[in-house]
């Protein structure tokens, strides 16, 4: 295989990989990403042509998205799923019938997605939608609902992009065009960000979002790690926590091409959102038992030490598993009792040792699932997972 240079720009680290090795560097936040990269990796960068350099990034925060759909089980769920798997951050979803009583977000929304009903249905949307959109501050808007309403909506909504319906006539999901649109929008967003834009000086290839690349990696994961299906991949990074999971872990009627889906927990990052992580931990009914299990007290939250950081990382693992477990019925429920492997990647793998991860996952399985059997745990300590997907078309 042709030797290529692969680069992942994270919110705290960047990683540079080729056939010979992987380098990781803490980002210098006083420098432009491109300058920082050139300064730290000039030797390796000089060896490669622009068309052999592939870059993905999660450093620009991603696109913020608002989705308006007509039901939770179909239009909203399908659009949410497509957006997550395209590497997009969803700030809110709105059930259309409640739109009049929904608070309008004050933040600028990068993209609004409107969807609902199969193609033979019509007259779903009316003035309520236009009134809401008039109050909303957004940059892009796309319609992926029933065909019959598209003319009416395009006449009343400026700059509306119309794509094929994401719900086909058998109530199955059609994700291709919306996924491509969102991925391209992410690309356009990157092009507008000075920091990332400059990276095109070293690559001729499209820069994708890291979550999108990780999703492409999952079907290939066995070529790198001994992972048994079904599995979850937990990426606990500086700002957010992502879970990519095998769809066999959920009860779902969604028929789609990919075997894997993604969830994002915006408030479970460890560095940028330390306070929100501590807040979530303090509000968990098992927190004292958990701290006692880890041999620490509540005071650890105020400390600035290696031990405190390790505890926070372990808490993050517990909280994210808790959130998708049957103990938290209001959220998505993964069948964790069927889980065969947990793969951990991101900043967490730099802090925790294998036995520390095993210990907290063992505690979770015993306490929450009442099981002494726990899944196989794999640490992607070298941050390699993203390298599998980055060159896949």
């Amino acid at each position, binding site marked *: 295989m042709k030797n290529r240079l692969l680069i992942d720009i994270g919110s705290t680290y960047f990683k540079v990989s080729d056939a010979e090795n992987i380098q990781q560097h803490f980002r210098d936040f006083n420098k432009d990403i491109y300058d920082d990269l050139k300064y730290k990796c000039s030797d390796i960068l000089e060896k490669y042509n622009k068309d052999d350099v592939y870059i993905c990034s999660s450093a620009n925060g991603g696109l913020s998205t608002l989705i308006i759909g*007509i*039901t*939770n*089980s*179909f*239009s909203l769920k399908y659009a949410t799923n497509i957006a997550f798997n395209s590497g997009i951050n969803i700030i809110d979803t709105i059930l259309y*019938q409640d739109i009049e009583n929904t608070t309008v977000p004050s933040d600028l929304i990068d993209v609004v997605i409107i969807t*609902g*009903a*199969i193609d*033979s*249905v019509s007259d779903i949307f009316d003035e309520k939608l236009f009134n809401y959109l008039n109050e909303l501050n957004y940059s892009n808007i796309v319609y992926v609902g029933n065909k019959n309403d598209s003319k009416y909506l395009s006449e009343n909504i400026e700059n509306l992009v119309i794509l094929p319906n994401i*719900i086909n006539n*058998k*109530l199955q999901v059609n994700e291709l065009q919306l996924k491509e649109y969102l991925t391209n929008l992410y690309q356009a967003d990157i092009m507008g960000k000075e920091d990332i834009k400059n990276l095109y000086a070293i690559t001729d290839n499209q820069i994708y979002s890291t979550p999108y690349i990780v999703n492409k990696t999952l079907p290939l994961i066995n070529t790198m790690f001994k992972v048994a299906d079904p599995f979850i991949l937990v990426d606990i990074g500086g700002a957010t926590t992502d879970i990519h999971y095998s769809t066999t872990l959920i*009860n779902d*009627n969604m028929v789609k091409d990919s075997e894997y889906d993604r969830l994002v927990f915006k408030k479970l990052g460890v560095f940028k959102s330390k306070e929100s992580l501590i807040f979530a931990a303090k509000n968990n009914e098992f927190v004292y038992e958990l701290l006692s299990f880890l041999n620490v007290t509540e005071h650890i939250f105020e400390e600035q030490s290696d031990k405190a950081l390790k505890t926070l990382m372990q808490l993050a693992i517990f909280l994210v598993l808790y959130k998708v477990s049957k103990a938290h019925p209001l959220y998505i429920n993964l069948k964790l009792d069927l889980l065969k492997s947990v793969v951990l990647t991101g900043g967490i793998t730099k802090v925790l040792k294998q036995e520390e991860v095993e210990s907290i996952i063992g505690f979770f399985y015993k306490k929450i699932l009442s099981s002494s059997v726990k899944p196989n745990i794999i640490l992607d300590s070298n941050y390699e997972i993203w390298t599998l997907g980055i060159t896949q078309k």
Partner: protein
Amino acid sequence: MKVVTGVVGNDIHVVANRLIEISLQARGFEVFNLGVNTYLEEFIDAVIETNADILLISSLNGEAEGWCRELNILKSKYKSLKDVVFMLGGNLAVGEAKTEDIVPKFKNYGFDLVFHQVDLNTGLDELEKYVKAKK
């Protein structure tokens, strides 16, 4: 006419589900079959997304009551469901139970047509009669 159908709750009687789909199609209905293991919320949502005329829920394992008693609450959330026909059929109780007790109970939950241990074709004949009379 459009019909949303499927087997409710934890029921996995897939053969019955397939027979219902085939029979509905043979009678000229456009069928959206959600299959087995379907929650009531999903049925309602499918009716909204397809603008269906009829929701036909089947239940064979006798546990329909636990899964269907909130129909009226869900119906009340959407204004567009007032003309939809809600039908439930199959084996609607565990063990011995009298039709005269079961039917009013489920009608009280919000179903227009309820068939306990009635064969499929009889049930569908009744559905067609009901729809015709409603016009």
